[in-house]
C-alpha cells in the first residue's frame, strides 16, 4: 500500500515536471537540485504567470533551450537571475508597468503598481536602502502568485490581514520602526474583522481597503474621514455639516477614530452615547448641552430598537403559525431602514434629525406589529372556524349514519 502511494507520488511529480519541461531546460536541471527547487516548480503550477503561458525565462531571462547551464544563464543572452529586494519593484515593473504588454494579457489590470509603491512607506524606505521593508514578493509570494479573487491567493481579501500581519505583528521587525504590533489582534476583534474573517463577507474592509494596496500609507488626520467615508458616505456627510466639525478641525481630532478607534472598531450600540460608558463624556461633562444631546439621541434610538425587536417577535409568532406575513415583513423592512437612518443621523449631532428618522421607523414598526398580530388573531379565528365547521360536518355524518341504520333496520 505504502509502496503504491510513493509510486503514485513519483508518477505525479514526473508528470508535473514533464508538463513544465516541454522544451524547457530550466525545469529539467532545477528539478534535480533538491527539495527547495522542486517546491518552487510545484508552486509555479498554480501561479497566474504559468496560467498565462509564461515560464521561468519570462522573468529571469536566459535561454531555456540551451542544454548547458553556462549558455542557458549567460548574462549576455539576457539572463537576469533572481532580483535582490532593492531590484524587485523594477524587476516586476518591467512587465507590470508596461501598458502595452499588460494589455495583451488583461486590459483591465492597472499598470501603476510600481509608481504607487514608491509613494508608499515601504517603497520610500526601500529606496533609502532599507531591505527589511516589504517589496512585491513579500506580499505576493514569488512563484505562487495568484489573482486576488482566488481564495488561495495571499492577497485575497480574507488572507490580506494575515499577509500584512506576517510582518506587522512581528515585534522584532517592527521595533526598528517604533510601530505597534497589535493591529491584527485588534482588527480580528473589530466589526470589520469579524465580518471578513468570521462571516466570510469579502465586501468587509481588510487592511488594504483603508491603507491602500501598493501605495500603502497610514491615513492621516486630514484624510481619515475620506477613508471611512468611502463606505460610510452618509456618516461623513452628516458629520461635516454638524456643529462638531469645526471643533474637531481646530483640535486636530481624528474625525472617526476619536469615537470609534482605529483598528479595534466595535459594532456601535447606543451605549456609545451613554452617559455612563459612552464616548461623549470624554469631552462633555454631564451638565453640558452636548451631553444632553447624546442622552436624548440614545433614548430615541433605544425606543426604536425596542420597537423593532418587538415587531420581529410578533412576525415570528405569526410565521410559526404558518400565516402569510409578507406585508408585515415589508413594513418591518421599512422600520429597519428607519432605524439605520436614525443611527446614521447620530453623526449630525442633532436630536431633531435623529427623531425624524426614528419616528418614521416607529410608525412602520407599529404598523408591522399590528399586521403580524392581526395575522395571529386571524389564525385563531381560522381554528375556531375550522372547529365549528368540523363539528357541523361531523354532526351531519352522524345523522347520515343514523339514517342508514334506520333505513336498514326498518327493512329487516
Amino acid at each position, binding site marked *: 500500500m505504502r509502496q503504491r502511494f510513493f509510486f503514485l507520488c513519483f508518477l505525479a511529480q514526473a508528470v508535473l515536471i514533464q508538463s513544465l519541461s516541454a522544451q524547457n531546460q530550466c525545469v529539467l536541471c532545477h528539478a534535480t537540485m533538491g527539495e527547495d527547487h522542486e517546491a518552487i516548480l510545484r508552486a509555479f503550477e498554480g501561479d497566474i504567470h504559468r496560467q498565462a503561458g509564461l515560464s521561468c525565462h519570462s522573468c529571469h531571462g536566459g535561454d531555456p533551450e540551451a542544454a548547458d547551464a553556462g549558455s542557458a544563464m549567460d548574462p549576455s543572452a539576457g539572463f537576469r537571475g533572481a532580483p535582490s529586494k532593492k531590484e524587485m519593484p523594477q524587476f516586476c515593473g518591467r512587465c507590470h508597468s508596461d501598458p502595452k504588454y499588460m494589455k495583451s494579457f488583461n486590459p483591465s489590470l492597472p499598470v501603476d503598481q510600481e509608481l504607487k509603491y514608491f509613494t508608499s512607506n515601504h517603497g520610500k524606505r526601500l529606496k533609502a536602502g532599507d531591505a527589511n521593508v516589504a517589496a512585491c514578493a513579500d506580499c505576493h509570494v514569488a512563484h505562487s502568485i495568484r489573482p486576488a479573487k482566488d481564495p488561495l491567493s495571499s492577497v485575497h481579501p480574507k488572507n490580506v490581514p494575515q499577509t500584512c500581519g506576517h510582518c506587522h505583528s512581528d515585534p522584532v521587525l517592527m521595533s526598528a520602526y517604533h510601530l505597534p504590533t497589535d493591529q491584527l489582534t485588534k482588527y480580528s476583534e473589530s466589526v470589520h474583522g469579524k465580518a471578513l474573517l468570521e462571516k466570510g463577507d469579502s465586501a468587509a474592509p481588510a487592511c488594504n481597503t483603508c491603507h491602500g494596496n501598493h501605495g500603502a500609507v497610514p491615513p492621516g488626520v486630514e484624510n481619515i474621514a475620506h477613508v471611512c467615508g468611502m463606505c460610510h458616505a452618509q456618516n461623513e456627510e452628516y458629520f461635516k455639516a454638524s456643529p462638531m466639525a469645526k471643533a474637531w478641525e481646530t483640535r486636530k481630532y481624528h474625525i472617526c477614530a476619536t469615537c470609534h478607534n482605529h483598528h479595534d472598531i466595535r459594532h456601535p450600540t447606543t451605549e456609545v452615547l451613554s452617559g455612563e460608558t459612552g464616548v461623549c463624556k470624554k469631552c462633555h461633562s454631564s451638565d453640558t448641552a452636548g451631553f444632553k444631546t447624546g442622552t436624548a439621541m440614545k433614548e430615541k434610538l433605544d425606543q426604536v430598537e425596542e420597537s423593532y425587536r418587538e415587531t420581529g417577535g410578533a412576525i415570528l409568532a405569526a410565521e410559526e403559525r*404558518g400565516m402569510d406575513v409578507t406585508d408585515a415583513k415589508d413594513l418591518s423592512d421599512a422600520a429597519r431602514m428607519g432605524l439605520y437612518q436614525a443611527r446614521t443621523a447620530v453623526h449630525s449631532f442633532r436630536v431633531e434629525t435623529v427623531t425624524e428618522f426614528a419616528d418614521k421607523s416607529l410608525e412602520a414598526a407599529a404598523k408591522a406589529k399590528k399586521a403580524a398580530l392581526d395575522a395571529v388573531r386571524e389564525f385563531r379565528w381560522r381554528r375556531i372556524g375550522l372547529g365549528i365547521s368540523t363539528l357541523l*360536518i361531523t354532526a351531519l355524518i352522524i345523522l347520515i349514519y343514523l339514517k342508514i341504520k334506520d*333505513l336498514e333496520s326498518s327493512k329487516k
Partner: protein
Amino acid sequence: MKTLTENLIGWLDERLSIHALIEFSRKKQVPIHRGSVFYYAGGVCVFLFLLQLFSGILLLMYYRVGGESSYESVQYITSKVEFGWLMRSVHSWGANLMIVFVFIHMFSVFFMKAFRKPRELTWVTGFVLLSLCMVFGFSGYLLPWNELAFFATKVGTDIIGQIPIVGHWLLKIVRGGEDVTGATLSRFFGLHVAILPALLFLTMSAHLAFVQIQGMSHENTAPRKIPFFPNFFLRDVMFWLIVLNVTCVLAVFFPWEVGKKADLLSSAPAGIKPEWYFLAMYQFLKVLPAKILLIPGELWGIFIINAAALMWFLVPFWEPHLPERKRDRVLSLVGGSAMIVLIAMTLWGYFS
C-alpha cells in the same frame, strides 16, 4: 294542496322523467361483501374532482398567468383575498388526496379482479384517468411559479428530453422552448385549466357510464345487496363528508407555502425533488447506473417504466390467456409486487 317542492318535482318530472331516474337508482343493487368498503374510493375520487373544480374556479378568478404575475397573484390570493388561503390549500391538498384515492381505487379494482370481462374498458378509462390526474398534478405544481415548482418542473421535463429521436422535439413542445420559462408556464396553465378538465370530464363520464351499464362486479356472488338509492348513496355522502373534513383540517393546520419566487438565473436549491407521486419513477431513474450495455441508464429506465405501465394498462387483455389455475396467484403476485415496489421506491426517494 300540493307543496311547492312537489309542484316543482312534478314540473321537472313531466319534462325530464325524474321519477324514472329515482326508480332506476332504487332498483340498482350494490353488492355488500368483505371488500365493499373499497367501492367508496371511486366515489371519493368523483367528490374530490368536484372539489377541485369548485376551488379551481374560485382560484381562477384571481390567478393571473405570467412570469411576472403568477407568483404575485398566488401571494395575493393567500394574503389578501377573503378565504383565498383556504381555497388554495384545499385545492393543493385536494389534488394530493385525489391521487391517493385514485391509487386506492385502482389497486382495489385490481385485487378484486373487477377489470375482467366485460369491464375491460372501465379499467382502460380508469388508467387514462390516473394518467390525466398525474399530468394535472404536474402542470398545476408549476403554476405558483415558485422556486421549488420551477426546479421540479425543470428536472421532470428533462426526463422527456432523454427519449431517443423525438425527445428533444417533445421537450421543446412541452417547455415552449429550450428552457422552463414564462412560455412553459402559459402552456401548463392552458393544459391545466382547459384541456385537462375537458379530457378528464369526458373520460370520467365514459368511466361512470360503463359502471352503470355493466353494474358492479361480484353482483352474483355477494352474500347480500343494498339499493344504490338511498342506502349506498348515503354511505357515499358520508365518506365524502369525512374526506371534506380531513381536507379542511389539513388546509388549516398545514397550509401550502407560497415559497420564494422562481429565479430563472439562480442555481437549484439542494434536495430538489418532484411531487411524491412521481418520486418512485424519479428514484428509479436516479439509482440506475450511467450506462447499461453502452446505452444510457436513464433510457433503460424510461423504457422499463413505460413497458411496466403498458403491461398494467393491458392487464384485462393478457390475464385471460394465463392458465386458469394460476391466474389468481399470478395477479396477486403482480399486484402485490407493484404496490410494494411503488411504496418502497417512493419512501426511498423521500428519505434519500
